[in-house]
C-alpha cells in the first residue's frame, strides 16, 4: 500500500549527512524498527539543530543538500524516518544505498537541483513551511505564509513503481 507524503518540513542545510548521524551504530542492536524511534538524527552535526526539538517532532518532510545518507548500508536510517512519520526527503543528491533503501521501503527520496533547494531553504525564513507531494504529477508544492512555490521532479519509473507498490518486497514478490 502506498504511503502518504507531505506535511511540515524541516531544513537541514548541510551536505554529506551520513548514516551514523541519522542513526548511530550503537542502536543497530535493536531488532524492531519501532525501537529506533527516539534516536532520529541523534548525532547530527549542524548548528542550531536539536534532535529532540519540536521542529523535528512535527516534521514529515526533510529538505537537505548533497549526498544525503552517505556511509553505511543500514536500512535503520530510512526506518528511523519511517517510524517518525517522515516519508519524504528532498535533497540535491543521495548516496546510492540510502536512496534505494528509501524507495525499497516505499518512501520518497526526491532529487531537486541546487537552485530549487536554495529557493526552498529561503522559504523557511518566512515561517513554517508545509510541503505537499503529488507523485502522479511529479510535483512538489511548498507553502508558507502568503507564498507557494512549485517544483517538478524526475523519478525513475522503477522507483515510482516501488513507491506505488509499497516497496521492493511487494514488487519483487509479484514478479520473480
Amino acid at each position, binding site marked *: 500500500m502506498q504511503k502518504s507524503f507531505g506535511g511540515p518540513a524541516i531544513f537541514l542545510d548541510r551536505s554529506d549527512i551520513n548514516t551514523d548521524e541519522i542513526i548511530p551504530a550503537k542502536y543497530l542492536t535493536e531488532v524492531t524498527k519501532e525501537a529506533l524511534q527516539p534516536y532520529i538524527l541523534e548525532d547530527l552535526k549542524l548548528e542550531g539543530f536539536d534532535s529532540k526539538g519540536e521542529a523535528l517532532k512535527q516534521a514529515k518532510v526533510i529538505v537537505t543538500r548533497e549526498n544525503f545518507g552517505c556511509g553505511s548500508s543500514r*536500512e535503520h536510517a530510512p526506518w528511523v524516518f519511517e517510524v517518525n512519520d517522515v516519508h519524504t526527503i528532498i535533497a540535491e543528491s543521495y548516496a546510492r544505498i540510502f536512496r534505494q533503501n528509501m524507495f525499497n521501503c516505499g518512501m520518497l527520496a526526491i532529487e531537486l537541483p541546487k537552485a530549487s533547494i536554495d529557493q526552498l531553504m529561503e522559504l523557511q525564513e518566512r515561517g513554517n513551511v508545509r510541503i505537499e507531494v503529488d507523485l502522479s504529477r511529479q510535483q512538489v508544492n511548498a507553502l508558507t505564509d502568503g507564498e507557494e512555490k512549485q517544483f517538478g521532479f524526475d523519478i525513475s519509473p522503477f522507483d515510482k513503481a516501488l513507491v506505488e507498490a509499497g516497496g521492493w518486497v511487494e514488487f519483487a514478490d509479484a514478479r520473480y
Partner: protein
Amino acid sequence: MGKTLAEKIFDSHLRDEPFPGTKILNLDRVLCHEITTPVAIADLVWRNKDRVFDREKIKVVIDHVTPSKDTKTATQAKILRDWARRHDIPDFFDVGRNGVCHAIFPEKGYIRPGYTVIMGDSHTCTHGAFGAFAAGVGTTDLEVGILKGVCAFREPETIRVNLTGNLPQGVYAKDVILHVIARLGVNGATDRVIEFRGSVVERMNMDARMTLCNMAVEAGGTSGVCMPDMTTVEYLWEFIQDEFDSKEEALEDYQQWVSDADAKYTQTLDIDISALEPQVTYDYKPDCVKTVRDMQGTRVDQVYIGTCTNGRIDDLRQAAEVLKGRKIADSVRGIVSPATPKIFSDALAEGIIQIFMEAGFCVTNPTCGACLGMSNGVLAEGEVAAATSNRNFNGRMGKGGMVHLVSPATAAATAITGVITDARDL
C-alpha cells in the same frame, strides 16, 4: 563497442529489465551478518515466506559484535543462528570460527571472477577485488535476495582509475585509496563502479587489492573492481583446482570478464603514485586527507589495527615490521583484531602476535569491534584514535570521538610515539 567488467557481469546475470535502465540481476552470493539480516528474517517470517532461494549461495557470519556483549546482541546472533540452522545453510560461521565478513568470505574461496554479490553491508564492494560485481545493499534488498536470488541495479557506469609508477617504500594500498578518495570526493563515484587498473594494481597481492576496493564506497562507488589475473588465480587455486586442469586454464576462463580495450568509461583518472606519501584523514569525512607528515604530532589516545579494510595477514605483517623490538607509548591504548581465525593463526605462527603483545597491544578475537563503536574499543568523548578502518564519521568509534584513518604501518608508528607519525621517520 567494448564492454567493461561490470557491463559483462550485468549482461550475463540479467534476469529482467522491468524499465529501461533498471537491471534485475541473478545473484551468485547473498552474504549475511547479524546486524542487518535479523530484520529481514523477521519480515520474511511475518510474511509467511520464511524460505531461502539457494542455501548454498547464502553465506552467513556473526561478526559485528562477537561474542555477544549483552542481551540485545545475543538476540541478534540467535535470530541469525536459528535461521541458518532452520534452512540448513552449510556455510555459517559462529563464535570460534567467525571473522570479519569481508575477510572471511574471500578467504573461504566463496568469491570468484564474474560473480554478483550482495550483502547488507556497505563495504561489500571489497569483493570486487576478485573481478566480481559486489555491492552493499539495505535490508530490504537483502530480504529479496534471500527469498528470490535477485537484486535491482541501475545500468553500471564505470570510472577507471589508472595507478602507475612505483609504490614508494613505506606507502601502501591504504595510502593509495585515501588519495583516490580525496581526488574523487565522497560522492565522486555515486552510482558508479570504480575500476582499479594499472601496473601498481597488477603488482598488488589480493590483500592489497581488497584494501583498495573496500573503500570504493567512501567515494560513493557501488563496487570497486580489479581485473582477474594470475594473482587472483593463485589466491583461489586451492578452491578451484577441481574445476580447471591448470592455473593457465583458469586464467584463460577468467579473462572473459576483463574489460575490453575499447570499453567506455564515464571518467578516467591517471595517477602516478611514485611520489605518494603516507596519507591520513582529518575531520569527519574520508575525503579530508593530508600527508601523515602534515599531521605529524597530533596526539592520539587509541590505535586500532584490524577491520575489513586492513585486518588481513599482509596488514598485520606491515604493522609488526614497524613494532618489532619496540614498545608503544604509555599514553596509548593499542588494540589489534586479526580479521579471521586463519589470519590470527597465521600471525601466531609467524610470531606477529608475539610482536604485538610485547609492544603492549591488546589482541582481540576477530570482530568488527571498535571500527563502528558497537562492541569493544569505544572512545570516550573528546578522545582521538588512529585506526586502519574506513570511516571517520562523527561519533563513529564512540560519541564525541575523532578517528584518523591510516595504514597499518602508520598506525603502528603512531602507537609507538603517541602522536601521528610517519613510520619512515622512526
